């Protein structure tokens, strides 16, 4: 599997996991739900989105490099 696809796979999984945490935090009105969303859900989704963007940039940079 090419590197970009491996990164996209990880990105999708991180985003999915973060959003599942977000979904669970919506079940109850409780400070712990708020903190879980903020300290677990958001960083997971953020990491996934950043990894996806990085994979695009890294792949684009590789494509632009002169071929030997």
């Amino acid at each position, binding site marked *: *599997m090419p590197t*970009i*696809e*491996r990164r*996209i*796979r*990880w*990105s*999708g*999984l991180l*985003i*999915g996991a*973060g*959003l*599942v945490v*977000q*979904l669970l*935090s*919506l079940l109850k*009105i*409780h*400070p*712990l*739900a*708020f*903190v879980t*969303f*903020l300290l677990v*859900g*958001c960083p997971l*989704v*953020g990491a*996934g*989105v950043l990894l*996806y*963007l990085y994979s695009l940039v890294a792949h684009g940079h590789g494509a632009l490099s002169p071929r030997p």
Partner: protein
Amino acid sequence: MNRVVLIETAFVVVTIVLAVLVAVRAELTRARGGKVFAFLALFILPVLAVWGGFSEQMQRSTSTQFCLSCHVMTDFGRSLYVNDPSYVPARHFQNNFVPRDHACFTCHTDYTMFGDYRAKWRGVHHVLVEYFGTVPKPVDIKLYSPYNNRECLHCHLGARRYEEASEHHKDPAMLAQAASNQLSCMSSNCHDIVHDVDTLKDASFWSPSK
């Protein structure tokens, strides 16, 4: 579950499905259509979902139910039902001077540009103390700084009942001093009975169902 939460939940579920689909079938992104699909599923939709979730969580964190979830706040919640109008929070709560479902936040936010966020930041700190620190006794819980009249005057300033109250004209400079926070509304012999949780064992309580 209200309608907004239902829509938010549906949106998050769809985003999860699409993100996992891209993860499982990463080879889809080789085609142009797949690239656009991945951009939607891994960037646009997750950002919107988190923004919606953040907005919902911020809204929830202003609710009375949220504040009283922590055990240490129980007595402060009880103080809202004291059957004595000299208790300032009880009087406000029972007479709907503050919205009952957002009672704590209405008085304990700073009415400044970033007051809401400052209050939330303090709240996150309180949660960390609740679960990982040493929780103080309710009677030992104090404000970080003396209560600012600005929070009272956010509603009361300009109100006829406030401006014309004879007690507020005992001293001609009283209203001006209150407005500039030189004289606290909670000064001795004024509105000095607030939550006073140490007095609750002797108090009687109002029951809204009566």
